[in-house]
């Protein structure tokens, strides 16, 4: 759909654990198609200390109800304020932004890897990939049991694998320690979103298996629609804006030393 800037109405704000909130937002105008991996740039209301908008991956879209949701992890002033939003409050948003993941073909075997709040774009990605008829596998990593959220919802969309840094749930260690990633299991493609070191490690393993890997970057942004040139990442064809030419990149295009 065309990019738009408009007010959205909060229809629910659910606290999922100590620092994650699922915000559902209703649009007055009919939502156009949003591609998994695209994001919204939200103007945080009533937070004078938050000068610029804050970007969030689209977590899910319900075209029948005309809502989109975002998963917010509270890390600072802006996200804290968003966590306090109440039903019927309005927030201004620019969306849909960025390029999105390349969707799998029917019967392709794919692995979605999400670390921390990087699981956000994987929900809509898993949902649409399942609808296409892909064989969806989802690897979720977090520090500890209490940081894992939405495992049941993901389980409805594919086979779920879990890691925790402290071993309190699933396999102990980082996502890169999990056999589903390490044993070359014949995935057609790996999709990954999470902290940079994690994405690099996942990309490295995928490369060694000869598997295509797409990552979603989270560079800090001022505008979100390609005019400030603040969000760049180095690619093999020069600096590119993460907000317009990403946030999703095929790792082979990035200048990562892996």
């Amino acid at each position: 759909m065309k990019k738009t800037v408009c007010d959205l109405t909060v229809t629910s704000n659910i606290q999922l654990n100590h620092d994650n909130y699922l915000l559902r937002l209703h649009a007055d105008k009919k939502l156009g198609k949003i591609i998994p991996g695209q994001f919204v740039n939200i103007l945080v209301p009533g937070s004078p200390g938050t000068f610029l908008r804050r970007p969030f991956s689209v977590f899910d879209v319900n075209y029948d109800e005309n809502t989109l949701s975002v998963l917010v992890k509270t890390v600072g002033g802006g996200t804290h304020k968003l966590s306090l939003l109440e039903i019927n409050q309005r927030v201004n948003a620019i969306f849909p932004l960025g390029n999105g993941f390349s969707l799998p073909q029917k019967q392709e075997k794919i692995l979605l890897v999400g670390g921390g709040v990087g699981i956000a774009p994987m929900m809509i990605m898993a949902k649409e990939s399942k609808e296409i008829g892909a064989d969806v596998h989802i690897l979720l990593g977090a520090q500890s049991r209490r940081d894992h959220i939405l495992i049941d919802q993901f389980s409805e969309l594919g086979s779920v694998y879990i890691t925790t840094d402290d071993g309190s749930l699933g396999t102990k260690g980082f996502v890169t320690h999990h056999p589903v990633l390490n044993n070359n299991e014949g995935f057609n493609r790996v999709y990954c979103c999470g902290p940079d070191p994690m994405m690099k490690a996942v990309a490295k393993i995928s490369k060694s298996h000869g598997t295509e890997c797409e990552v979603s970057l989270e560079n800090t942004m001022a505008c979100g629609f390609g005019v400030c040139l603040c969000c760049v990442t180095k690619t093999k064809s020069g600096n590119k804006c993460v907000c317009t030419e990403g946030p999703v990149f095929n790792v082979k295009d990035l200048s990562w030393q892996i």
Partner: protein
Amino acid sequence: MADLKVKIHNLELKNPVMTASGTFGNGTEFDDFIDVNQLGAILCKGTTLHNREGNDYPRMAETPSGMLNAVGLQNKGVDYFIEHIYPEISKYSTHVIINVNGSSIEEYVSLAERINELENIPAIELNISCPNVKEGGMAFGTNLKMAEQVTREVRKAYNKTLIVKLSPNVTCISDIARAVEAQGADSISLINTFLGMAINIETQRPVLSTITGGLSGPAIKPIALRMVWQVAQAVKVPVIGMGGIMNAADAIEFFLAGATAVQIGTANFIDPTVTLKIIEGINSYLDKYNISSINDIVGKLQM
């Protein structure tokens, strides 16, 4: 409906609201949000003779009521501009102005010569004030002799409307303004960003890859306004004011201080439709006070 038309030298603007270079892309990025043709003029992002990759990431730090940037004039160079961007922006009926940058006088001049040939570009803004490039840039804007020299040489090579954009990182901005006016500037725009910095106390490192960067946004507005007021008194050519303008009230302050037109920068990031709201707001203000033309408030600060 008040008369919003203003004149910047030979250039007639349907209203006094332009966009600030580096904050509006080449205009087309805003097509989804607004009808760009409703603006008085648009300023394309900073262009150089050759391709520039710009500075390393991180290039941005949010600061109280503003932001620091260290983009470093990333652009693909004038040949690319002429071949790919110029045909696309020629569709606009509003004025498209190019922000011209160089690291030597020769570069500024060559670039101005190339742009002089472009039929649909009625003006250039000579940026002698970029704080984010190692060579040239702000050096031209902070040294009176260099500011004079670059304006003089570009003036010889360029025969359409020449706007010179000043740096606020100087001790006496009116001196620089008078100097570039004397060398043939048709208009003066100000201000570019203030040199600033931010430190991440957790890593104890600078936030920006370049350590220092340019501060913009409402944080700089009072200083920008003061400088516009000083320059407007020092020169006869029209002054274009900018720095932290977020709404029509801010813009009106700049007109009263002596700006004939304004540029909107950082505000575009927060609301891509803000420029049109500002035009509307200026119109309502004039109607409310029964002022028939915007020109009737330019420099009309009551004392």
